[in-house]
């Protein structure tokens, strides 16, 4: 066990104060922590509504379109951020169009799956047309948490603040429309408009998160902390706060573990958050 820990966690002195100081002595690590914090707060808030609205599959599909956006931007020679936001916005609109109000559950899931598969197929097409980034495919899909510049970190903070403010402003009607859409519609809440706007905000936030955790692992920050929070409490405000707190802890711990080891940050973030989720489910089943 001892030799195993040494070979996996290089440079860890097991003195917490020294370790944190070592961690914060590198600018790239500070940027990663800033960006990770912004993403975690946003993913905690938006993920909570996503889980409440049972739109996990839509969130996953949008995270997949982020990969398409990045590869399309690479092929067209425009900045990657433009590709992310453009394609994720389009994906959100396509999903909203595909899941009309009178569709059944099964046709909605078929439509979502088809949109996702098409997005991935196009992404792969762009990557193979643009031979240069074939080696970067893994980083497009799985993220490069540790290569973030200070400018990127500032952009991420701005987008995170904007989307949290938008969701916060619409939170009461959104909550009503999510819990009981029929009654909300009868009371004059614009349910369809809210649904479309939420998908758009979800798409944009997924686009933002993708730049850091990669398209496939966005999901870990969006869904798992929110699902854990909803296992613990049904009260909305406490739930959102808890979801944000879990996302923050998971991101910080994951980043720190990745700094001291040779394995990717995505693995640690998903594993820590899944362990928390499994633990809460187990505790709930026992009590």
């Amino acid at each position, binding site marked *: 066990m001892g030799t195993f820990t040494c070979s996996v966690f290089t440079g860890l002195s097991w003195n917490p104060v020294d370790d944190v100081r070592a961690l914060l002595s590198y600018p790239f690590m500070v940027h990663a922590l800033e960006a990770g914090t912004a993403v975690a707060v946003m993913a905690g808030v938006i993920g909570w509504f996503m889980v409440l609205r049972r739109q996990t599959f839509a969130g996953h599909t949008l995270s997949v379109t982020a990969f398409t956006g990045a590869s399309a931007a690479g092929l067209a020679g425009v900045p990657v951020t433009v590709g992310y936001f453009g394609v994720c916005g389009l994906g959100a609109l396509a999903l909203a169009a595909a899941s009309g109000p009178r569709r*059944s559950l*099964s046709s909605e899931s078929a439509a979502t799956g088809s949109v996702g598969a098409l997005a991935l197929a196009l992404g792969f097409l762009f990557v193979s047309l643009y031979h240069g980034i074939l080696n970067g495919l893994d980083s497009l899909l799985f993220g490069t948490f540790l290569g973030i510049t200070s400018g990127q970190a500032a952009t991420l903070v701005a987008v995170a603040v904007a989307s949290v403010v938008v969701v916060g402003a619409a939170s009461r009607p959104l909550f009503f429309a999510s819990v009981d859409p029929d009654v909300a519609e009868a009371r004059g809440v614009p349910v369809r408009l809210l649904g479309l706007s939420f998908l758009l905000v979800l798409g944009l936030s997924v686009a933002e998160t993708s730049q850091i955790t990669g398209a496939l*692992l966005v999901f870990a920050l969006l869904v798992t902390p929110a699902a854990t929070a909803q296992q613990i409490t049904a009260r909305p405000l406490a739930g959102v706060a808890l979801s944000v707190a879990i996302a923050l802890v998971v991101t910080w711990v994951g980043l720190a573990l990745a700094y001291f080891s040779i394995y990717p940050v995505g693995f640690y973030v998903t594993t820590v*958050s899944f362990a928390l989720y499994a633990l809460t489910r187990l505790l709930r089943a026992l009590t």
Partner: protein
Amino acid sequence: MLAHEFMRNALVAGSVVGIACGLVGYFVVLRAQVFAGDALSHVAFTGALAAAALGVDLRFGLFAATILGGLVMGALGDRARPDDVVIGTLFAWVLGLGVLFLSIFTTSGSGSRDNGAAGVRVLFGSIFGLSSQDVWTSVALAAIAVAVLAAVARPLLYASIDAAVAAAQGVPVRALGLAFLCVVGIVAGEATQAIGALLLLGLLAAPAGAAQLLTVRPYAGLALSAALALASVWIGLTLSYVFPTLPPSTMVVSTAVAIYACALVCASRSRMRFWPRRMVHA
């Protein structure tokens, strides 16, 4: 085109995978379990990479992971129909594990460039690289999956459409759901070799979704779904053969989604003809 052996292999394996995906996909869509199918395809990715990192046969890891994944998801869900939050949480973690295995695999091998390409092959398939032995394996597996599905088709249909009434009549709804997820696991593992872990969802969801838009009769729908999936594979492979820059899996999935889009348009137009007055009033 048929003179090349790789093309013949690709067509045979692709047809078999297409028929299996079309038939299984029909039930997947009917049960609104497309997300579970998606999750199983990502499980396939992790399984294959785990096998690669540990140095065992890729196919062993693939099928062990998908069948196990199907069983776990069935066990977690109520009546073996897992909630999408449960699926999402589980497979976010499975993907994290996949990333770990990918990094172990790419850093451990001597030729790391080849190893990185292996990861891409698992994600997006390599249908033109199948040997004739691979083709026979996939024919045998598809036959097993289709036979199991045919054996349980009637009760599964009942359980999918109205689980509560079926359970009251003594249909073993839970066992059926578990068996079905296992079959989906087998098909997902098989399709991963042909069109890749990330794209098999298109072949699972799009032809079946189109078939359900075009007919409500179950057996006609099953046949139509298999036929549409088969057509997507053939058209996609031909396109990719004629234009070699276009990857085959992309062409197969794009064809399937294009067929689905056509079915959406047809279905909404026929609905307009059927209720002209209501559309005007609305």
